[in-house]
């Protein structure tokens, strides 16, 4: 085919094409570890154009470590509050007490991190002037506010030893909001144009749920006498299993947007997270019934959860900064749509 004016594209190439290609090759170096990715990337290189390699979408302006810590603390606090309420109902006073402290402390700290992350912290209350189900942050505000109020108050009452009936009520309220508290943050990340978050919008809530259970169970294990900590151990191990399973699904996904979970700092966080979580879960099963084993495995599980949050956060940031993760999936989507369209026409 001669590429004349009549062909779309008309043969026009960027004048400094050679320099742009060199730029892309340099980027590629990191993924030699996985053969499939390297192969996929080579195909992509030919198809992908951008405006001087500049990102198309804006990367989130959220600060790190504020937001990853918020994700971690919110998750740990949410699952701990559920554990505390159930422990209270099944007459496990120590576990209940520890769970309430973890929930209260985590909730208050997470509010602090969230407010600190705002560009205008003094306007935090503006969050409460509307209720918008299309905004995960708005919905989250109406989860976080009652949760942190109830969990914080319950922990305070627990500490002071006053009003046992109010304590039980506060614990129940915080437990009610504990589950949504742990998973809404996944929607917060997924409901953006950030490719490596948005693409996994049905999987991230389960990563965060698993990670929150591992963190909440792990933290409760550390501070609870081992003979009462059985539920914490079980929840932590189950959470770790869910987290490892769904993270594996995300990392082995066919789409190019799973690549940032393997590369650079995010890749190192995810690798360390998997190691910690797996080791923590294994150690819980083997030695969770000894004091030392409980402390060690609980610490590992919490560290694994924290690292997962940092890894997911960083992977999203990396995918936002590189236009290839925006352009290539959208091009693939358009090509798939064209194929579908063509097949309906021929029929």
């Amino acid at each position: 085919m001669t590429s004349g004016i009549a062909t779309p594209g008309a043969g026009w190439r960027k004048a400094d094409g050679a320099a742009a290609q060199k730029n892309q090759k340099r980027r590629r170096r990191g993924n030699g570890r996985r053969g499939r990715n390297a192969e996929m990337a080579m195909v992509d290189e030919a198809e992908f154009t951008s405006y001087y390699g500049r990102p198309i979408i804006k990367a989130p302006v959220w600060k790190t470590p504020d937001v990853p810590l918020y994700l971690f603390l919110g998750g740990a606090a949410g699952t701990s509050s559920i554990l505390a309420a159930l422990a209270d109902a099944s007459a496990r006073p120590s576990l209940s007490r520890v769970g309430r402290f973890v929930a209260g402390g985590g909730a208050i700290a997470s509010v602090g991190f969230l407010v600190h992350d705002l560009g205008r912290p003094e306007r935090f209350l503006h969050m409460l002037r509307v209720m918008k189900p299309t905004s995960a942050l708005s919905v989250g505000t109406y989860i976080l506010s009652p949760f942190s109020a109830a969990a914080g108050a319950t922990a305070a009452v627990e500490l002071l030893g006053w009003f046992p009936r109010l304590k039980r009520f506060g614990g129940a309220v915080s437990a009610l909001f504990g589950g949504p508290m742990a998973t809404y943050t996944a929607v917060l990340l997924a409901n953006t144009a950030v490719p490596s978050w948005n693409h996994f919008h049905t999987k991230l809530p389960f990563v965060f749920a698993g990670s929150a259970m591992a963190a909440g169970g792990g933290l409760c294990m550390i501070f609870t006498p081992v003979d009462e900590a059985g539920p914490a151990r079980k929840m932590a191990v189950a959470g770790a299993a869910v987290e490892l399973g769904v993270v594996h699904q995300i990392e082995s996904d066919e789409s190019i947007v799973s690549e940032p979970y393997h590369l650079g700092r995010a890749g190192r966080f995810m690798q360390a997270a998997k190691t910690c979580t797996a080791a923590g879960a294994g150690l819980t099963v083997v030695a969770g019934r000894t004091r030392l084993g409980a402390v060690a495995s609980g610490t590992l599980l919490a560290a694994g959860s924290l690292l997962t949050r940092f890894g997911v956060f960083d992977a999203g940031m990396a995918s936002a900064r590189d236009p290839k993760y925006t352009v290539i999936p959208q091009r693939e989507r358009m090509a798939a749509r064209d194929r579908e369209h063509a097949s309906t026409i021929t029929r």
Partner: protein
Amino acid sequence: MTSISSASPALTGNDPKNRLFGPLPDVSAEAGYVEEHPKRVGFFTDTSVCIGCKACEVACKEWNTLPMDDSHGTRDVIGLSGMSYDNTGQLGANSWRHVAFIEQTRVVDLPMPAVGLPGALNRPEMPAPDSGDLDSTAKAQASVLNAEALSEFDPQTAQTGADKQIRWLMSSDVCKHCTHAGCLDACPTGALFRTEFGTVVVQQDICNGCGYCVPSCPYGVIDQRKDDGRVFKCTMCYDRLTDGLMPACATACPTQSIQFGDLDELQERADARLATLQSQGVETARLYGRDENDGVGGNGAFFLLLDEPEVYGLPPDPIVPARDLPAMWKAAATGAAMIVGVAVSAVLGSRRR
């Protein structure tokens, strides 16, 4: 504002009125302007006549008193991008218009076998008949707006002697004022709102700088001013619109590359312009953001481009994140239920003491 009912599709997934996704004939009415309201306005940016003068950028900065920034959006810094004549670099909190500049080259197998014997295609080295060439040249000269023909006479785009041709693409980018705006969906304070003109504007006295709109825009338009904390973007000169004036950029544009008006009228004009260009042989011309069936329900500010969108730094197939929001809330609810289920069975499955 019909608060809960208007947004409930986000939770239920039941969206017969296309509140989250899809074509929306009247955005202002959907946003609550139920009584008489002005028609939806917009920009049609015809990049085939853009000369890259950046008058739009200057007019925008002046009218909206935007601070100076460099090509990475850093405030009060003079900096050359070092990549092209484009030293604005991107849209951001301090640049609401951004003229993209792309230099392209192509190998041409001239003379073009457009007019000639049926067998001419097989012999590209054969010169085309003189008469035909003159004919097409005269025709092209007659039409000032024929971009391809212009390139023949422009010293910048004419042939460089060899079989290489160079052209410059220039395009003034701006906030798209989407039918389904990601930033507007994401804003938790109500600072971002839909105006009676169908545009999307930030109320600066409400914005608390949560930054959630920034990654929610599939075009990367809105951004935070770091030292201020709040987010800023094009308002389509809301203040001027309310006084019956055109936005500053459209007023300043010397070639009518930026056209402002009622959106339906602009769309008609754009369709006609596209047809003209295509009849003149500019097959690479295409409209961007014109299709109301696209991922954001069509743009209030749309473009005529001469190459693929990503060449200009635009996403080829943007989709408003909220399209998948019901699925996300469902997954989150399932995850929350799973946590409760695991906790209950962990408690029941553990021996007490």
